[in-house]
Structure formats: C-alpha cells, structure tokens
C-alpha cells in the first residue's frame, strides 16, 4: 500500500511554525517581566510557563552571564513593532450557545491571519454564558470560537463582560435582572432614582445580594469556570484576559446615560451615588469624617445627566463647589470607591489566573469631553478625581501596578482637531496624561479605538501607536460588515502595512533603531526575547 503525502497547505504549515516561536516568546516575555525585571536575582526555573524547546533554550541562556548591557534592551523596546495588533470580534458573535455568521467569522479570521494580525479579541458576556441561572454556564459557543481562532493560528484576547450591551442587545443574565426587579438597589442610580441596568452597582460588590452570594463571589465563580472550560487554550491561544470593571466593561460610573451622538455637545454627566447602598457607604464615610451632614446625598449643585457643566455651580471654573472642602470630601470618596472596586476585581482576576500564562487587563475610559475646563466634569462624574489641580490617574495606575495588570485605553482614534469646540474636549492631552501616569508606574498600555469612531481615526491610531501612549497591543474594534466593506477594508490593510513602516514617518519615532529596524512582528519578537535573555 502506498500513501502519498501532499503538502497542500505548506504555507500554513510554516506559518504555524513561525507562530510556535512567537508563542513561546511571548510567554517568555511575561515570564521575564514578572521574574526577571522585578527580581533579577531570584530566577526561578519552576515556572509553568516554560513550554517546548524555546523555553528551555531560554532557560539555558538566562542562567548564563549577562551578555548584553541592560540599557541596550530598554532603548530597543521602543519600536512600534512591539505593539501587537488585534481585531475585536463582533459583540454578538455568540448568542444562545451558537456562533453567529460562522462562515463570515472563519473567512474573516483567515484574512486577518494573512494580514499578519496577532489575534482577535473575543467579548464573552455574563448575560450569555450564565444566562439562565446562577452557576449554570454555557461556554459552548465561545469554545467553538476559541477553537476556530486556534485553528486559524491566531491569538485570543478574551474580554469578560460583566456588563450589558445596548446595541446589539445583550442584557445582564436573566436571573440577575429578575433579582433587580425586586431589589433595584443592586443597580447604580442617578439623582432621579433611575436605575442603570447595564451592570451592578459597585456598592454591592461585597453584599450577598445574588441568591445569597456576593457579586464578587459570582464573578469569581464565573472566572474559575471560564478558566477550567478554556484550560486547553489559556496560555497558548488565550494570552490576554480583560476583566470587565463596569459600564461597557470600563472602570467608571455610568455617569453618561443614553446614546452619545457625535454632533451634540455631551453633558457633564451625573454622579451615580444614589442607590441605597452607595448612599449608605457615603453616610458611613461622612460620619467617620465627622461631617454627618455631608453624607446625606450627592452634591446638590451638580447638573443633571445631559445638562452642560455650566448649568449649575458645582463645576464652575472658578469658585465651583468642586474646589470647596465639601467638593474634595465627596470627590475623594466617590473616586476611591471606584478604585477600590477596580482593585477588588483585578486582584480577583490576578489570583484566579495567577498560575496561567496570561496577562490581565482592565479598561479605563477616556472621558475627554470638558477636559479643557479646570474641573474636568466628565472625568469627575465618571469617578476620576482628576482636575487642573490634581493628578487623579496616579492612583488608578498605581492600583493597576499593584495587581500587575495592564491597562486598556479606548479612544486612541480620537484627535483634538475633530472634537466639537464647545465641548472643550481634548482626547489627546487626556491620553497623554493617563499614559504618563501608567509609564510612571510601569503599567503596560493596550489601545483601542472608540466605539463611536472618528474621522481620520486610523491615522490617529497610528500616531498613538508610535508614541509612548501605547506599548503593549492594539485592539481594533471591531470586525463586521463595516470592517470588511470595500470602503473600509482596503484602508485597514493600508493601515496595517504602514504601521510596519515607521521609517517613513520617522518624525514620530522617538528613537531610531539603527539600520536594522525590525521589519515584522516575528523579528521584533526575536528582539524582545533577546532583551529578556539579557535581563
């Protein structure tokens, strides 16, 4: 009997070989980052991250005397090519356990792979997986996707969404909403008492409001179930996990309700401290501070959701209540609650995935409207106590650093030039501010474009990718009809190609890497691994 072997997919074969390298490099990168950069003298070889030969090779190297000066590696790390490009899968790629537009997704994945993307981002919804009842998880659709992605030779960045989506409509789990029908205080409320059903209030994190469990426990069970369901993928295909932190997955209060329209000036947003539990916390805090009267409610002179900051006196540029002792009291409390919430969730994620070779991310919003005023109303109502006189993102970055998590910053496509003049908005300077805080605390930054889109967005993204504001990866949101449309996709191809031609835009490059600028991601990663070896 004879059997012939045809290598019809020789191209794919080799791609896979390449990928194998990337793969292990990447994990090595993390390995190093955690073990070498922080404690260069306490190298442990028991890391579970080591797989295959490259891991071993590296081990051998690592134990050897230092062949490369460290300074060299740190300058080298600043090339554009280090930023790995991902594309987000459609939000509703899975519903009811099935993969929607299976064929489109699989064609799309192939196209992205050929285009040289690192991987795709997959939003996994609480309301889809644990839809029916507490503790009953259906991962099937998502597992199918993970398998497709693995087969396509791509990486997967998973976003665990503990929030709801309005378009397409993906609500919170049914049983949670049922509980919310009788206990509306599990949701954030605005001053009018209107609940926000897009996520749970951070004030109930530690309260046993969900059938005797606290939301934190429920999130933890969810993460653990995820971990065991995807154990075959975590660390090999799944290299990054974003922990959902609030509305739209972002670390913030749902201060801006309703749809943001690009042609109208956004309001200041509204403080969301009016659910029973938030008010209770505020009251306790005020009493502890010896100001019981300050704990009766939120600022009385803050404008309502859609009103302009100028509609009332709280945010006034000069002499606004925000600058008063009361203002400081309230804003400190309000923002610290948010940071504590982020801390709880990120440390939960870090501990659940501590033995997995994945990076944990959390998303921080870019509340850029009204950034030009002194009080930064949008940031304040969203929970960031960042004003002309106070650097509020330091605490946030510090919290991320504490949990060894990386930050995801959306809005990388927004440029100042296209903002409405009236909104005194400045996405670029806000981004730079957050970027500075992150760099100071050594927090890696992954970028995203905003969901609302922006004119010349790709250009702005590229600019950001070349800057200090971005040093981990970029997740392009998101694939779908529009993404693959003849009007858009060629632009995207062009974008990807140009990303890798930094020398054409050397003006934007902080440093030149000599003549052998890494020409592609594969090489780049090689460089990276060399730095690591040297560390």
């Amino acid at each position: 009997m004879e059997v012939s072997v045809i290598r019809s997919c020789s191209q794919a074969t080799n791609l896979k070989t390449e990928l194998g390298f990337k793969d292990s490099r990447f994990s090595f990168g993390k390995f190093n980052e955690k073990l070498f950069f922080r404690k260069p003298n306490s190298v442990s070889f028991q890391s579970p991250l080591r797989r295959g030969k490259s891991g071993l090779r590296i081990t051998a190297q690592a134990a050897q005397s230092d062949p490369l000066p460290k300074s060299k590696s740190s300058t080298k790390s600043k090339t554009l090519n280090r930023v790995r490009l991902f594309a987000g899968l459609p939000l509703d790629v899975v519903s009811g356990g099935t993969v929607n537009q299976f064929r489109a997704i699989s064609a799309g994945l192939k196209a992205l792979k050929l285009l040289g993307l690192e991987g795709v981002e997959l939003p996994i919804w609480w309301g889809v997986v644990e839809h029916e009842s507490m503790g009953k998880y259906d991962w099937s659709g998502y597992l199918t996707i993970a398998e497709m992605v693995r087969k396509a030779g791509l990486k997967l960045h998973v976003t665990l969404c503990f929030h709801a989506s309005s378009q397409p409509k993906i609500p919170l789990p049914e049983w949670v909403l049922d509980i919310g029908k009788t206990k509306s205080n599990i949701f954030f409320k605005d001053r009018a008492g209107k609940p926000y059903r897009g996520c749970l209030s951070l004030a109930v994190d530690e309260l046993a409001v969900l059938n005797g469990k606290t939301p934190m426990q429920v999130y933890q069970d969810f993460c653990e179930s995820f971990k065991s369901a995807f154990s075959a993928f975590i660390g090999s295909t799944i290299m990054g996990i974003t922990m959902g932190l609030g509305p739209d997955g972002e670390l913030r209060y749902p201060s801006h309700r309703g749809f943001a329209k690009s042609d109208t000036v956004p309001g200041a947003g509204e403080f969301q401290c009016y659910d029973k539990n938030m008010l209770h916390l505020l009251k306790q805090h005020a009493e502890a501070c010896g100001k019981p009267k300050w704990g009766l409610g939120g600022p009385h002179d803050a404008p309502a959701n859609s009103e302009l900051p100028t509609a009332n006196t709280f945010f006034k540029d000069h002499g606004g209540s925000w600058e008063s002792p009361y203002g400081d009291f309230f804003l400190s409390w309000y923002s610290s609650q948010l940071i504590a919430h982020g801390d709880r969730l990120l440390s939960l994620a870090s501990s659940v995935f501590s033995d997995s070779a994945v990076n944990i991310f959390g998303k921080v919003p870019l509340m850029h409207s009204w950034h030009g005023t002194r009080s930064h109303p949008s940031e304040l109502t969203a929970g960031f106590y960042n004003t002309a006189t106070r650097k509020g993102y330091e605490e946030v970055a510090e919290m991320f650093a504490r949990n060894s998590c990386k930050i995801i910053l959306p809005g990388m496509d927004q440029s100042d030039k296209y903002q409405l003049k009236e909104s005194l908005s400045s996405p670029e300077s806000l981004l730079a501010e957050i970027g500075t805080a992150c760099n100071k605390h050594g927090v890696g930054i992954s970028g995203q474009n905003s969901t609302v889109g922006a004119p010349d967005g790709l250009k702005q993204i590229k600019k950001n990718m070349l800057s200090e504001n971005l040093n981990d990866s970029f997740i392009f949101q998101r694939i779908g009809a529009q993404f693959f449309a003849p009007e858009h996709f060629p632009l995207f191809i062009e974008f990807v190609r140009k990303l890798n031609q930094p020398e054409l835009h050397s003006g934007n490059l902080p440093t030149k890497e000599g003549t052998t600028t890494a020409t592609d991601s594969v090489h780049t990663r090689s460089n990276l691994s060399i730095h690591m070896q040297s560390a």
Partner: protein
Amino acid sequence: MATLAVGSLLQNPRLSSPRGQKLLLNLKPLRSLDLDCSPHRKLLCSRGACFSNSNPCGKFYIVKASSTDTAPIDTFSSADILYEQTFPVNRIEKVEGKLLIRLDQSKDQLNWRLTIGCSLSGKWILHWGVSYVGDTGSEWDQPPQDMWPHGSIPIKDYAIETPFKKPSKDDTFHEVKIDFNPSSAIEAIHFILKDEETGASYQHKGRDFRVSLVNYLEDDGNMIHAKSSFGKWPDAVEQLPNMVLKAEASCDSKNENRRLEGFYEEQPIVKEVSVGNMVNVAIRKFPDAANIVLHLETDIPGDVVVHWGVCRDDAKTWEIPAVPYPPETTVFRNKALRTLLQPTGNGSRALFTLDEKLDGFLFVLKLDANSWVNFQGNDFYIPLSSARSVKGQSDSESEETSGKAHTDGIINEIRNLVSGLNSEKSLQTKVKEAKESILNEIEKLAAEAYSIFRSSTPSYPEEDSDADDAEPTINISSGTGSGFEILCQGFNWESNKSGRWYMELKEKASEISSLGFTVIWLPPPTESVSSEGYMPKDLYNLNSRYGTIDELKDLVKSLHGVGLKVLGDVVLNHRCAHYQNQNGVWNIFGGRLNWDDRAVVGDDPHFQGRGNKSSGDNFHAAPNIDHSQDFVRKDLIEWLCWLREEIGYDGWRLDFVRGFWGGYVKDYLDASEPYFAVGEYWDSLSYTYGEMDHNQDAHRQRIVDWINATNGTAGAFDVTSKGILHSALERREYWRLLDQKGKPPGVVGWWPSRAVTFIENHDTGSTQGHWRFPGGKEMQGYAYILTHPGTPAVFYDHIVSHHRSEIGALISLRNRNKIHCRSIVEIVKAERDVYAATIDDRVAVKIGPGYYEPPSGPQRWSLALEGYDYKVWEASS
C-alpha cells in the same frame, strides 16, 4: 518534497531512522522526537566529563541546561568562556505510523461502524463526505446529520470535518468512529486525513480514501474494500502484526442485496514533523594560548557536516583558515572547509582551533545531499574578535532550507506584505507573485466575510459611526433592515387551531432559514378575544392560542439561532376591554395597563370613549385606542420595549395602521428601535365601472403618505402592487405593470425601500380568502416580487406547498445576485401577454405567456429559472 517522502517510504517501508523504526513498533514514534529537547541537553552535560579530544585541559562544558545542574561551573576555572550561543534549529523529520481502517457491525446488529484510527500523534482531522448510490461524478455529499460524530463541523456543503479523539488520555492513538445505517442509500464514504499541526493532508494514491458500503461496485483503484478478513481492532499494540481474525460478517437488515462485509486494514503513513534541535557554539580561550578554541555541538541526529570558513572583516567574506583542522575535514572548492562532526551518541560535535586575530567564524550545516541548515537565510556567524564584544548574531532563529525555499519565500512575503518593507534581500519574482496571491486571498476572504455580515447583521452604532471615515454601504433603518431582507409570514389564519403553533414552527426554523429568508413575522402574541389574536385584551399576557410565553421565547431563541430576525405582530389600533362602564359599555381595561375610558377615542359612539377624536379610521369591532393621550403612548412604548427585551422581537408588523396617525408610529418606533418594521395600511384600490383603473397613484399615494408620516421609520405592505398583479395576471393585462413614468405601478415604483411586496397573507388567502391571488399564477407573482426591488414577503402557505422549491430557487437567485430593496429595475416590456424587466443589469425576468428573450448586450444572459409562464435569467458578465 512530497514525492521524496513517498519514494523513500516505498523503498524503506519500515525505516526512516533507526529510532523511527524502534518507535514504530511502539506506535509512539513522536514522543522522543518531540520538540522538547531537554533529554539531549541533559546528555550533553553528563557527557562533559569525557570530552578530551585535542584539548589539553580536558574538561569542557558547553552549556548547563538545567537549574539543578550547577556543578559544571567550576570546570571553567582553567579557561574563560568568551562567547556562547545556542541556536535553535528546526528540521523536518519523517515519522512513520499507521492508518487503521475498520468496518464492522455494531453490537445491536443494526448499525455499522467505520472506525478510522491513526497511530501517530498529532491533531488529526478526518475530512470526509459520502456519495450516494446512483451518483455520478466524483463529487462528495455532506453526510446526513445522524452520521456526524460529535464535534464535527460542516465544510461548505459537501463535506464535514471530524477531529480524531483519543480513546484514552495518554494514548497517542487517535480514532474517529462513524456510525451509519447500512440501509441508507450511501454508496461510499470518502475521506482524507488532515493534520492540523502541520496542515498536511494525507491521501491514498493521490486520491481520496474511499470505503465502499455496497459490494457490487467495481473497484476503481482507490477503494478500500472488504477483503473478507475481519480484523479485530488492536486493543494492545503488541497484537498489531498478526491480529487478523478470520470472520465473515454479513448484514441482514431488511435491505435486500446490500451485504456489507466488515474488514480491517492498515496503511502506513508518514508524517513530517518539525523537530527542534539546537546548535551550540562556545568559544574558549586558555591562558597563555595564542589560539582560541571553538566548540560546535549539535543534537541533530545522523551525519552532520559543518561547511565552514573564517573571515577577517565585517563583509563576512569566506576564507579558508590555516591549519590545524579538525579530523574528517576536507577542502571544498577552495572556498570552504567541510568537517564531519564526530558522533557523540546523542548528536555530534567538533572542535576548531582558530587564530584569535580572525574576525569571525562562518558556517552552515549540511545534513544530507539536499538539506542545509542556516541561520535565517544567512550563514551562521560567530564573532571571534568579540570574544571581546559578545554581540554577534543575537537573533536566534534558524531554519531548514532544504526544499523549503518556496514556502519560506511565501512567509517572508507575508511579512513583507504586512510590513511593506523590502528587506535587505531583494525580492524575487516568484516571491512577488506569492505576494499578490496572498493579497488576493485576503481580499477574497474579506469579501466573503463582508457579504455574510452585511446580509445578516444589523449595524451597530459603532459601525454607523465608523462610516464617518468610510462611506456607509448600508443604512439600517427600522423600515428596511439591511435592505437585503426577505420576509416570511410565519403563520396563516388556521395556525391558532392546534394550540401549539410556536412549537410547530420551531421545528421548521432551520428549514425556513435555509430557504434564504432573513426575517420571519410571527402571529400576534397577546391574549385575544378572537383566537387569531387580532382582538387583544391584556397586552402583557402573552399566553395565546399560539402557545405560552415561554414557548414563544423559546421559538424566538431558536429563530435567532438560525439567523432569522423576528417580527412581532402588534395591534396598536384597538384593544378589547375587561370591564363595562356604568352604562354597560365595555371600555374599562384591566391587566397591567388598566386604562379607563380616557384611553378610548371619543368619536366612536359604540364605546363612549372620553379620549380625543381618532386620528385615523375607526375599526368598529373594538374600542379604538386614543394615541393622542400621553399616558397611552408612554404605556405602549414601554410595552413595545418590554416585548423587545423580554421576548427578543427584532421588529414589528403593525396591524391596521390606518386607524391612527403615522406620527405616533414614529414615536413608537423611535423608542423601541426595531430592526425592521412594516405597517398594514389597507384600503381599496380605484375601480371604475367594476374594472380596476390603470392608474392607482391615489392608492399608493395614501400608503406613501402614511410611510411619510412615520418619517420612513416603517415600511408598508405594497397592497397596490398586489392589486395590480391580480388584474394583470388574471385578465392577461400585463401592460398594467408599467406606470406612466415607466416604473412599476405599485408603492415599489415610488418608494421601493419602504415597500414590502407580497402576493398573499393570512387575510387575503388562507381560509379567509377574501382577496385570493389568482389561482395557478402564484409563481408568476413570486417571480415578480422576488426579483424586483422592495422587500418581498412570502406567505407561509406557499412555502409548505408545491411552490416551495420554486420559491426557494427564486430566493437564492435574489440572494446570489444581491438584489436589495433599492435595486434598479428597468422595465423592458409591458404588453398584453408579457411583462419583462431587468434588475441591476444582473437579472432579467419575464412573466406572462408571451415571448421574451433578453437581448445579448454587454452581458451574456443565461436562463437560471423557468416555470409556468415565467423565466428568470442571470447575467454572466
């Protein structure tokens, strides 16, 4: 490569390497050839002690591989290691294994089972299909669903792929089991094997493997057939060589002459495995010595020749150094030296003594006649001067070059394509071609993804706004959906009779979806005084004669699961009361919306409403709701949003919208944000002396006015077109299908994107039949609406009738040619007995008994569909 592999296998069927042979017997060939090279490393270390060639100092440790092994460091005391580098090397190695095929009868004696196993490790996938008795040609068919093993996924419409599974966890042995019923008409199972890890496919003599399930077929060469030896599946590896148990099995199912014979067969297969090896280079200098010693060692098995030289400058020009050379060294064409590495038991090595003034040491490895190992396409370069600066070739990937040049080229190209950079290496033509083909491939895939996404997803805000920098091609509007919608009316007038319509329809969900529909309209869901649902009472009570609310949710979920959008039929015009007022008039409502008589219009004396005058026509059978009341609108909006959320409806069919102002509909739609909405605006066409007027502009104007009042948020049923089609077809007056301006005479001629064309619905057809479409002409009607712009709606009765396949063909033609609600129609003929038009220059259609053939113009037309008095052509560019 491929032929080489086969050739060598044929000559040496059991041998690829000594190790391979041994392993073959174990059936675990891959384990020790695996990528993990730790064993080699260990050996390298432990062997260190007997390293003593020409080296006076004897002990020479190259590398320490494991953290536990710290002792060797001491041995460096006598000499300094100046440089050390380990290069990983990837090679392709052939591993031999077996493919096992067994056909046998299951225990229950009814079904048969085909088991395909593979003894090699890997991510094996069985890519397979079937052929049926009587099939001609070599096409495969997708196996019937009940044959699909767990985990199978469909590949296009002709095959499925099933991953191999390990019967037990630590086995390398994988298998797929396919159960089937021998009485089916399947003639043979065809398959090829794929290895996901490498992407390679394995065929049988260059063709599919084929397992014949009927025994009267001729052996056409690639058939694996029953040999009347019935093998027992090897449970244990040792049984492998002679395990054939003679037995004969015959299948005595009712099936007459189809006797199956079980068999068991093995076929050798060879897999190319990427093997990771390494090359380690270390340079050492001994105190007081003028020379340095370069030690090269590799764990690549077999004979390895180092093809080497030295250089004196950065240009890396090869030079032959002065003696001494290591043993087994020859001069190669005065340019380089060739040294056979000395076997070490687990690899090989050599020591080179070099002048320290040299700049670098260059080499490549030669494995056999065709296989070279180099460093990323370049020579390995070991800086000698830098014993001083250890920079050198810091990168660390090397690739096997043999036979891979082309594929490497492609990979480089992908890189270059992505990077857009011409690397230092100049591009070759071949590579340019590869680049183009990859770009083409990307574009093709993107186009495929685009067409599916476009036709099946609503746009999200983010997509809309993405459109700021890229022209939007589709505008999702609640009136039109994506523009590519095809609607199915999912019930008729009798559907309530069974009391379990939702469950019945659920059974049909995938069938409806596969016909090509994108939207389905479900019957009115609320509690109703009439069983059909159009006399709603408690709007929040969704238990109706069609089923319970839970069944409804379940149905909607299933419909969504197969990609259908779901329209709820909402009756907003009127509502039946729960209670009588003091005068005994039924106008007080109960349930969650416990309105009083202020919610009822004031101008209908039957119901003594206290509301305002009706904003439309009155429907006299029930209290008409006064939509001008804020609380009514607020409650209705809340209800619609609740329906969207609770049930999952994607949009609405709005009943009797003639009864109230379209502006209110706009409010309802703005708030409930449907994906698609269509209103029933129904009134009479114009007749003069009993004959329908040619000009029905007034009729369609009223419908268009209503759509306008909704601000275009809803479409409307094109009653005008239906009426005109009636006359045109019934009386052979096809000229009616052209209006004075040369356009279609219905709403579709004026506002195609908002026209929902139909020929029949539950009122006009079904058992009510008050305005039934001319009998026998239904397909002409569908040929018209399914090729024309507007959003066509197909009535349930027709898709369960004998028209079904013709309708399916028209729908798929519509989808194939991407005809949408705004497609351009050009009417080329509208005469007494024939009407013809072209749509988007891609489709030509004629209806009526008269003659028409599309002229051969820029397009070439080919007849795509033909039925009773209609024909449809497609342009073939």
